């Protein structure tokens, strides 16, 4: 099940419309909670998904779904764990990049394992970045740069964070 956070207290003065929307995919509940906090601290709206299948369903690419134009969803970044049961983050990346509607969305892969062949494979498939877990606030701040709203900069705002 994909779930959205509604932490308005952390919106840091940006309204719903202006906050970049991140889809975070990870099979670990602990890591989903962490990434959600890290992203919310950077004034992002977060939707989490526990696996690749749910993520695809959210993006409108699930089995039997008609593809949805991303301007409705407004997902500005996908951040996904590499090692997940069922569909790996790499497989999810491929599916996103194969979709004409969604391929523009930057995809960041995270992994607890530093495996050069894995990293290269993901970057070659079009991943924006590959990051090592566990993520820190400083890692997530860097990602703000990628969260351009489909070509429009986020009002030039940078995450000042902590």
């Amino acid at each position, binding site marked *: 099940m994909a779930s959205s956070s509604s932490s308005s207290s*952390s919106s840091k003065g940006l309204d719903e419309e202006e906050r970049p929307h991140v889809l975070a995919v990870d099979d*670990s509940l*602990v*890591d989903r909670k*962490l990434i959600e*906090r890290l992203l919310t*601290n950077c004034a992002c709206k977060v939707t989490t998904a526990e696996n690749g299948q749910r993520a695809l369903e959210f993006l409108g690419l699930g089995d039997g779904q008609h593809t949805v134009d991303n301007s409705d969803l407004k997902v500005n970044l996908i951040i996904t764990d590499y090692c997940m049961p069922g569909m790996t983050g790499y497989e999810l990346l491929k599916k996103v990049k194969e979709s004409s509607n969604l391929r523009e969305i930057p995809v960041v892969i995270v992994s*607890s394992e530093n495996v050069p062949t894995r990293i290269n494979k993901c970057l070659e498939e079009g991943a924006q970045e590959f990051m090592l877990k*566990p993520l820190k606030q400083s890692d997530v701040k860097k990602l703000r740069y990628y969260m351009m709203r489909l070509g429009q900069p986020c009002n030039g705002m940078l995450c000042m964070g*902590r």
Partner: protein
Amino acid sequence: MDVVSQLQKQFVDYSTSLYREGFLDDQFVQLQKLQDESNPDFVVEVVSLFFEDSEKLINNLASALQQQIVDYKQVDAHVHQFKGSSSSIGAQRVKNACVAFRAHCDGRNLEGCMRCLQQVKFEYSLVKSKLETLFKLEQQILAAGGSIPVLA
């Protein structure tokens, strides 16, 4: 020294020892930085999730190792998950025990795996009780009207 200062000193000493003895690493510090007035229970919430998750994983591991024919890939997958979650909250010794465990999975060494499971269980129960003590100290400080010291 008044009650609050005493408790605060106890807290600082206890926290410092946890880092010094390798129970916790910098990732736990990162977690604490994510806690603020709008999310005052963040650390306890994440750690509680970790406890629930860990208990399930330990049960899954025990049962996977008891199978007639052990599926080492499955065992490895559970250990990988455990390694990930312990790393995410900064439970360093648990994480290290998981790293050792994976080596035995690779070697398909049942006896080694059983020993590692015991080690992981041991380290987990240690860090669990230490974190519970830490949280209790925090509650005592707050109840006495003090604030929780931030370690540099």
